[in-house]
């Protein structure tokens, strides 16, 4: 999978939000925010083809977490990103 082109990560008041550069209207009622670990993953995989295993590897590198937990979290995040339309 891959993060769709046109999405940009921004930090507003300490909150990490994903903004679509292409769209005209930024709807703050429906904003996609990422927590710190999701931000680490986003930055690591942005612009590349990646799998949940790659996402899990980022988690394991940055946090003390076992492989199974990292993979479960990565799968969950990958699903959430797909559902939110951030990935293709």
């Amino acid at each position, binding site marked *: 999978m891959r993060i769709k082109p046109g999405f940009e990560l921004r930090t507003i008041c300490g909150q990490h939000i994903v903004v679509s550069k292409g769209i005209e209207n930024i709807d703050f009622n429906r904003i996609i*925010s990422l927590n710190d670990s999701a931000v680490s993953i986003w930055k690591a995989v942005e612009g590349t083809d990646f799998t949940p295993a790659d996402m899990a590897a980022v988690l394991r590198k940055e946090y003390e977490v076992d492989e199974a937990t990292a993979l479960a979290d990565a799968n969950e995040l990958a699903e959430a990103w797909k559902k939110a339309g951030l990935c293709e």
Partner: protein
Amino acid sequence: MSHSIELPNDVFLQEVRRLLEEGHTATLRVRGNSMRPFLEDRRDSIVLTAVTHVCVGDAVLAETEPGHYVFHRIISIDGDKVTLMGDGNVGRTEHCLHENVVANTHSFIRKGKTYSPEGSTWRRYSWWWTRLLPFRRYLLWIYRHFFI
């Protein structure tokens, strides 16, 4: 997973300002009661756009003091000086300079329905509401007690 994030107004609106300058419009949830009865706290939203020109009667986002923003209606313009008053306020006005008007209204989202500031509903409402200013205190009382 959906949840609300509350951000401090001054920093948040600074960022909104930047997005508007980049050519985006921004949809924000209304907070506070100062634009009653048309806009209700947390129920309604406004879509803001960068300022091109402003007129008396426009609902605008303005920085009335450094870091302090209001979304109110312009009630008079005297050269560079702009005076604002919220529709839900009965006498309190705010003052700023033309350059402190940050955003114009692209549209209002009231009870899920979108209204243009150029449209007949907003214009008719504005015509009546601004002329009923002497009775506003009583009208707002009725609104608060019977319509919310």
